[in-house]
């Protein structure tokens, strides 16, 4: 029997889960293996802009809620193009409470973070339009 606890078990026994961020999907907020996230157990339904930790198969994902539906959530990573539909409350095991970006501590309840959350979601179409244009220009330049 493995002695390693699951994240669900850690959240249940310790009341929090602390981890180093892995991946690029929440850039520019979190960088791969640089930042620290503090996750608390979920209580009740989540709100738009909350960042849940949820499970898809064997994988754990930390992305942002961009729309709350009656029976599920629409979720997207800040650095991701595509939305994820149909994420249910049952899949969500915790929610981002606070974090360290490098060595600077921040809480999701802070004004600065809340402004960032609104802006990053609102700016998504423009960011991806700019990336697409940049990609097209880059390809055209390579052809010449």
């Amino acid at each position, binding site marked *: 029997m493995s002695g390693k606890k699951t994240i669900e078990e850690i959240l249940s026994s310790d009341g*929090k889960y602390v981890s180093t961020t892995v991946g690029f999907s929440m850039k520019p907020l979190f960088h791969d*293996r640089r930042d*620290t996230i503090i996750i608390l157990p979920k209580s009740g339904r989540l709100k738009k802009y909350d960042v849940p930790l949820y499970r898809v198969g064997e994988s754990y994902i930390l992305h942002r809620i961009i729309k709350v539906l009656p029976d599920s959530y629409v979720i997207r990573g800040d650095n991701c193009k595509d939305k994820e539909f149909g994420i249910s409350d049952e899949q969500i095991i915790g929610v981002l409470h606070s974090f*360290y970006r490098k060595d600077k501590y921040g809480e999701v309840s802070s004004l600065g973070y809340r402004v960032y959350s609104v802006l990053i979601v609102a700016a998504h179409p423009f960011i991806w339009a700019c990336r697409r244009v940049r990609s097209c220009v880059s390809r055209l330049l390579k052809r010449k």
Partner: protein
Amino acid sequence: MKIKNGFVLRRVLDEAIVIPSGEASKSFNGMIKLNDTAAFIWEAIAGGKSLPEIAKSLSEEYGISVEKATEDANKMIEKLLTEGFLEK
């Protein structure tokens, strides 16, 4: 002595936790909780203090003798060395 590259102390909801970051997080998957004294010593080491300096600070902070503080700091440092969080 110094803290190995890639291990950081985080204050999380009144607890002190050491977790890996960067390359260290690829090989060390977990975290260790430190009590107040251990966290104090960790931060002193991170700040580049020597053992006598750590013992003096510990003695002043917790109102204990320098001898007792040196003993406690030594124990903690030995433990951190054994666990692989420090290097000489």
